[in-house]
């Protein structure tokens, strides 16, 4: 089992850092799944998370200049690691002017993701900063817990308005109540219609914890190219945020 990756381009590094910062705001601890072509940050819906789950997918080719991954076995060519994204975020925070950032899975005393940042310096040789981020390797028998959640059979699906607008509204509403009721109504062509003249059959409603929604909106560092929201009435609210090379799905269960 081996993992080595390198980012040389500053723009890619910046973009990757922003994705990690977003993930860090959404989950204290999550699973990193590495495959030959993609990286996934997964948070499965446990009671400890308040029932929220997250699935974030990145194409490695869009970020890394070098990427070598050898999974646990030939027929299971993947690696699942549990880590705290906050550590990764902190390691990359001071790497914004780096010449190169190398990430490698090592096992010196315990499994670690070693982030080595090569920084420019006035002297003849570069400054190297290494951060050893402790990780737990997730054994194959538990991999089933981290399967991609299926898109729910939603009642209504809409394109969201600018997240910044939503964020400021939700922030103010937080002062009023602990939960927010998402009401989406859809007209025949699937777009959000005005509140008047509703057809009850094409409305979907779910009450969710406002803090979870705020957490999602506050963490966003880049405006997505597409943002969708699906609601299964009284069950779950499903957000899909799509950027050019990253997709983020966030599921917030409805309150009883």
């Amino acid at each position, binding site marked *: 089992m081996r993992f080595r990756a390198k980012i040389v381009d500053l723009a890619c590094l910046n973009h990757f850092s922003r994705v990690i910062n977003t993930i860090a705001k959404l989950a204290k601890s999550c699973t990193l799944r590495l495959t030959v072509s993609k990286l996934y940050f997964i948070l499965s819906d446990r009671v400890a998370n308040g029932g929220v789950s997250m699935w974030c997918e990145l194409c490695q080719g869009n970020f890394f200049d070098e990427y070598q991954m050898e999974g646990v076995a030939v027929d299971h060519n993947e690696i699942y690691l549990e880590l705290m994204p906050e550590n990764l975020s902190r390691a990359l925070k001071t790497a914004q002017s780096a010449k190169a950032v190398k990430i490698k899975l090592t096992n*010196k005393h*315990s499994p670690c993701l070693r982030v080595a940042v090569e920084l420019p310096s006035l002297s003849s040789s570069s400054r190297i900063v290494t951060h050893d*981020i402790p990780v737990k390797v997730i054994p194959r028998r538990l991999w089933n817990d981290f399967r991609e959640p299926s898109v729910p059979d939603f009642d209504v699906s809409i394109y969201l308005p600018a997240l910044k607008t939503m964020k400021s509204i939700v922030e103010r509403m937080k002062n009023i109540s602990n939960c927010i009721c998402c009401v989406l109504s859809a007209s025949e062509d699937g777009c959000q219609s005005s509140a008047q003249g509703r057809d009850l059959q094409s409305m979907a409603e779910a009450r969710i914890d406002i803090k979870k929604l705020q957490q999602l909106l506050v963490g966003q560092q880049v405006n997505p190219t597409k943002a969708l929201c699906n609601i299964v009435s009284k069950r779950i609210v499903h957000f899909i945020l799509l950027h050019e090379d990253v997709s983020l799905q966030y599921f917030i269960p409805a309150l009883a």
Partner: protein
Amino acid sequence: MKSFLGVFRSLPTLDKSVERCLVLLRPCAGCLVLQLHCKHGVTRTHQLAFQECERLQAIFDTQCCASRLRAPAQVLAEAVVHFPQTLAEVTLGAAAGGRIGLRSHLEEGSEPGKAMVTELWLAPDEFQEVAVVPGSCITFCLKEFRGLLSFAEASSLPLTIHYDDPGRPAIFTLDDSLMEAHLVLATLLDPESDSQPPPATNGSVSHPPAPSDDFADDLESYMVALESSACEGEAGEPPSPTFSLHTPRPAKSDPEEEEEEEYGAVPGTPPHKKFRSLFFGSVLTPRGPGPAPSQEVLAEDSDAEC
């Protein structure tokens, strides 16, 4: 200090309006008077009450320190920025070849597999002076060091670090034509016992048993690759083991023996960290079973002299 700083809170305003500042100590009244003579005949007088306290003078001698480093404050400030704000202590070490490293120090009692460890190496040519014992290292409080660095950076002064064996104080000095500053920090006695996690038998306790799959551990080749890209002409020695005193060092005698004894006594657990304060016998609290009272007292009780 807060009330003193409060008087000079708004520097631009003071620049514009204050002509003279008089600082007067009135011991009988127990106050320090700060009188700001401003334009247009306005005088602002601040009276800050004070309490006399015991005169404590730390005894230290930079000449007795075996190692010395001097660098612009900015270089050191740029180095410590990579460490988390919440990190309490940092280990400074000198590798063979003159490179100087900084590494996060994990607290005693924290599991080795839980906390993130950051390590940074600086080339000797980033320093103005490097006169260190190869393989030496000390662990001291990062928070205090950061405070000193922000002060030094503001005055653009080079910072000199004088240090000796672990356990002996480290002295940080700033020199200027106008002032001389010394910050003396205690250092941990056995830094290597904590930066080196316990041996493998204990390591597996904190993790689920490793699967039968082999972890590819190219640490050696990786570090060599890093080293060779970082410092041309350097011998391919992985820097981390420098911090570990498991590599034999002929110079050290007692601390190493002590440490080995303890390892022998309780296999698989890290030895107790002994924190010895060499200054004011009763002031600093030792962590763990420190042998405090029988220590060499460097500062006598001023009361005893009266």
